[in-house]
């Protein structure tokens, strides 16, 4: 699964994108796996209320299922316009 990071999430984790081998069934399970990896992930995911997630380029909740998903992205609240 492709995992993407944007804005300060990208900066904290230190890369824009990575391929993750995971059996996670939900976004939350994927977050827990990433958190367990390294300090920089734990730090990036320390406050989920400050994060948003998209599954296959659609905004989703943290309890969204990952079945069939090819791309998950994590980022702070958007500031367009």
């Amino acid at each position, binding site marked *: 699964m492709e995992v*993407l990071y*944007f804005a300060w999430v990208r900066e904290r984790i230190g890369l824009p994108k990575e391929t993750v081998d995971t059996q996670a069934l939900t976004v939350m399970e994927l977050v827990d796996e990433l958190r367990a990896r390294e300090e920089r992930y734990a730090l990036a995911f320390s406050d989920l209320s400050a994060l948003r997630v998209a599954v296959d*380029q659609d*905004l989703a909740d943290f309890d969204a299922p990952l079945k069939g998903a090819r791309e998950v992205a994590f*980022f702070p*609240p*958007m*500031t*367009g*316009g």
Partner: protein
Amino acid sequence: MRIVVQKLPFDSGVELNAFTAKQSNMGAIVSFTGVVRDFPNGGLQYMDIEHYAGMTEKALEAIATDAMSRWDLGDVLVIHRYGMLTPQEPIMMVATASKHRKDAFEAADFLMDFLKSRAPFWKKEQTSASHEWVASKQDDEDALKRW
């Protein structure tokens, strides 16, 4: 409906005229242009706008399609830049065309509210000393509840 996501500058006046010229019997044209603001005391070197290529276009199209279904519109234009912008440069623009001024105004207002908080752009303000990601505002999130 025209959705443009680009790094290059654009000309609001030229875009407004091109949009207006395409319309057939629309009495009301509303445009909004967003411009990079400097800090109150100056010092902004540039605003760096990151976006989620692929999702951005989809999200903008979804927002514009939603506007077309909620109001009686002839057309919608959305242009949004990414990359490095300096103060006074246009960041983005929306335009709406309708038979009626109320629809044109409300739809443009709606588009802006959703672009602010639902299109995957992130703004970073760069000074000579540091950079800081622009924080989202609770006001902007609250504004969505109007619709």
